[in-house]
C-alpha cells in the first residue's frame, strides 16, 4: 500500500538521484576474503533503490591468493563499468597492502576504508620482500593530501568477537553504506537474501557494527 506521502517521498528521492552524478566504489582484497559477496549485496541493494548499476570484477586467479578487485558504479545512468585513476569516491580495502596498492584510485575528498589486517603475499612468505611496516601512516599521509577521509577498522577482530571472523565483509559493508550515506534502506533484507538463515543473525550484527563507523 503506497500512501501519498510515500509517493511524494519517492518522487523527491528520484529527483535527488537524477541530480547526482554517478558514484564509484572500489572494493579490494585477497581471494577468499568475501569481497565478491559484499559487492553482490551492494549492487543488488543499489538496484532495488532504483539506480543504474554496473559492477565489474576481476577474479581470474583469485583462489590462488591473488588480489581481487570489484568496481561498482551507480547513478542515474552509468556508462563505463571501470573506475579510472583518482575516480573512486570510496575505496574499501579488505587488506592493508591492497589498500596501499589501490589508494591512488581515490578521488579528491574521497573516503578510504581499511581493514587493519595483513595477508602475506608469497614474496613475503618466502622472505624475499618485507611486508611494509608503516602502511597505516602511508595511507593516512596520502588520504590527507587528497583532503579525504581515512577510516581504519579492525573488521576481522570485530567479526571474530561477534562469532566468526568471516563476517568481516559485512562489517566493512556496513562501513561503506555509512560512507555513501545510504543507511536509509533495508540492507539487512538484501543481506539475508544472499545467506542461509543460520548466518542471518551474525551477519546482521556485523553489518550493524560496521554502520557505527
Amino acid at each position, binding site marked *: 500500500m503506497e500512501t501519498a506521502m510515500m509517493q511524494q517521498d519517492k518522487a523527491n528521492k528520484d529527483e535527488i538521484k537524477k541530480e547526482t552524478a554517478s558514484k564509484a566504489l572500489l572494493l579490494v582484497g585477497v581471494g577468499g576474503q568475501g569481497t565478491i559477496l559484499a559487492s553482490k549485496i551492494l549492487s*543488488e541493494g543499489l538496484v532495488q533503490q532504483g539506480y543504474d*548499476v554496473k559492477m565489474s570484477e576481476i577474479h581470474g586467479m583469485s*583462489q590462488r591468493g591473488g588480489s581481487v578487485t570489484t568496481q561498482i558504479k551507480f547513478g542515474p545512468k552509468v556508462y563505463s563499468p571501470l573506475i*579510472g*585513476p*583518482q*575516480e573512486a569516491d570510496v575505496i574499501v580495502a579488505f587488506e592493508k597492502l591492497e589498500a596501499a596498492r589501490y589508494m591512488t584510485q581515490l578521488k579528491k575528498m574521497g573516503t578510504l576504508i581499511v581493514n587493519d589486517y595483513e595477508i602475506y*603475499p608469497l614474496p613475503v612468505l618466502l622472505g624475499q620482500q618485507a611486508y611494509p611496516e608503516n602502511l597505516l601512516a602511508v595511507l593516512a599521509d596520502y588520504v590527507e593530501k587528497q583532503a579525504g577521509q581515512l577510516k581504519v577498522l579492525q573488521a576481522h577482530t570485530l567479526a571474530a568477537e561477534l562469532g566468526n571472523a568471516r563476517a568481516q565483509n559485512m562489517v566493512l559493508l556496513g562501513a561503506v553504506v555509512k560512507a555513501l550515506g545510504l543507511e536509509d534502506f533495508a540492507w539487512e533484507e538484501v543481506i539475508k537474501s544472499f545467506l542461509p538463515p543460520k548466518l542471518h543473525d551474525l551477519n546482521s550484527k556485523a553489518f550493524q557494527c560496521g554502520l557505527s563507523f
Partner: protein
Amino acid sequence: MKKLLTGNEAIARGAYEAGCTVAAAYPGTPSTEILENIAGYKEIYSEWSPNEKVAVEVASGAAIAGARALAAMKHVGMNVAADPLFTMAYEGVNGGLVLVTADDPGLHSSQNEQDNRHYAPHAKVAMVEPSDSQECKDFVKMAFVLSEQYDMPVILRVTTRVCHSKSLVELEAREEVGIKAYQKNVQKYAMTPAHAKVRHVIVEEKLCELQKAAEHSPLNRIEWGGRKVGIITSGISYQYAREVFGDEVSYLKLGLTYPLPEQKIRDFAAQVGEVWVIEENDPYLETAVKALGIKCKGKDVLPLCGELNSGIIREAFGSPKGKKVAAGLVAAPGQELSLPGRPPVMCAGCPHRGLFFALSKLKDVVVSSDIGCYTLGLTPPLAVTDTVICMGASISAGIGFEKAFQKGGVPKKVFSCIGDSTFFHSGITGLIDAVYNKSKICVVILDNRITAMTGHQDNPGTGRTLQGEETAAVDLVPLVRAVGIKGENIRVVDPYNLAETEEAVREAAAATEPFVIITRQPCALLKDVQRARAGMYCAIDQEKCRKCKACMKIGCPALSVKGGQVVIDANSCNGCGLCLQVCKFEAITKAGE
C-alpha cells in the same frame, strides 16, 4: 523484469530466449560462465566438449540438422576451432549458428592478447559486438536471426570487461523456434573442392547483401551530440568514450562490425569536424575507416597493447574543445612505494607441488609445460619449467626439444608436463607422435581430476557431465597403453608421496623409450577434498626445528618465517605432508584427523 547480469549470464539468457537448443564449449576465461549458465536451462542440450574444435563442430552439426546452436570459447580457443569455422562459412546453416569469442585485452588470464575481430573478415562471416549485458542478450538473439537470414555462422565478439561486468537486463520469454526440417544437400553441406568453388561465390554474394543491410541495421546507431568531433567505436570502448566525452561529441556506435556499413561511416564522417576511432588492441575499425579515404585519429594516440579505460582515452585525445580534460591524469603521489606483489601461487596442499619439487632435484632436464594451474611450476622457488606455448604444446614441443637436442648432442632429458583436461584437449595427438616417432621424452599427466584453472569444470576424465550427471570416465592408463606406451614405461604415483614421485621421475630420466608418469591426487580446492581434509594440518615442533628452511623450498603458502621461526598456518594447510617429507630433523608432524 530487470536483473543485474554479467555479460556471460546475459549471453546464456539470450541463447535461451532465442530458442537455442544445442550449446557446446570448452572452458576458458573470460568465456567459461556462458556454458555454466546455459546448463541451467533444461530446454538446451549443453556440453563441455574436450576442446573448442569439437565444440564448434558439435554446434555446426546441430545447426545443419536444424537447431539454433551456439559454441563459446576464449579468444585462443577460436584458433583451435578455426578449421571448422572457415569451412562452415561456406556451408552456411539451417538453424542459426552463433560462435562466441571472448577476447582478453589486458591479458587478465591469457597467454596472448590476440584481437579476434580479424577472424570475421578472414573467415568471411558476420560479426556483432555488444557493449553491455543488455546488448549481450539482444545481440545473441539478433545474431541467430542474421545467421538464418544470411545463411552463415555469426561471430559474437566480447571482451573480458563485457563478460565479467554486471549491468541491468530486461528478461523476456523464450521463443520456441523448434528444430527446422533437415534436407540432405551435399552441394551445400559436403565441402569437396567442386562444391566449395560454387559456395565461395555464394559466400561473397551473401556478404555483399549483408553489407547493404548493415547500412540500416539497428545494430549500428548514431548518437548525435556536438559535431566538432565524431567518434567511431564498438564494444566496451563505446562505454569508455561515452563516459569521457558525454554529449560533447557524436558517436557512431557499431554493433555489426563485419561487414561494416561503409556508406553510414562516410555520411557520419561528413557531418562531423574530425573523426576519432576508439578501440582496444588492433586498429581494426581504423584501418577500415582509412580505407574509405577518411582521415581519422586512432592508434596514433591510443595504445595497441592492453585495455583502454577512461583515463587513457582522456589523456590520448584531450577534450574536443581543445584543452585537456582534467581528472585522474596527474601522476598520483605514493606511486614510488615499492609494494610486494601478489602473484598467483600454487595453493597450500596443491597436488601439483610434489611433482615439480621432485623435478627440481634432477640435473640436466628441460621441462616443457602447458596451460593450467601447473603452469605455476614456473614460479620460484620451484621454477623448473622452461616453456609454455599453448594447450597441448607441452608434449609436441617437448618432442621437438628432444629431437633437436639429439641432433645437437645435448644430453638433456625432456619432461612434458600436462594437466588432465589439457591432455584430453590436445595432448593425446602429441603422445601418439611421441610413440610413433620414438621420442625419448617423459610425459607427466598431472591428473587432479578436474579442470582447475578455470574454476573446476568437469572433463572427460572426471566421470561427470556439465550438468553433473554421471557418465563414463576416460581411463588414462589403458588409453596411454593403447597409444603404444609400454606397460613397463608407465607409473601412476601419488604426488603427496615424495619418495614414490621422486623414484618415478628418476626412472623416467633414465628411460630410453617414451615414458608416462600419471600423478593422481584430486585438486585441494575441490569441495569433497576440502571436506575430507578439513581437520588436517601439519605442525612444526620449534624445539626440533634447526631453521634450515629446507621446507620453504617447496613454495607452500601455508609456510612462512615469522619472527625468525618457520611456522605453518593451520587454517590454510590441508595436511598434504610434503613439507614433513623434506624435513631432515623430523620437526614437522601431522596433526588433526
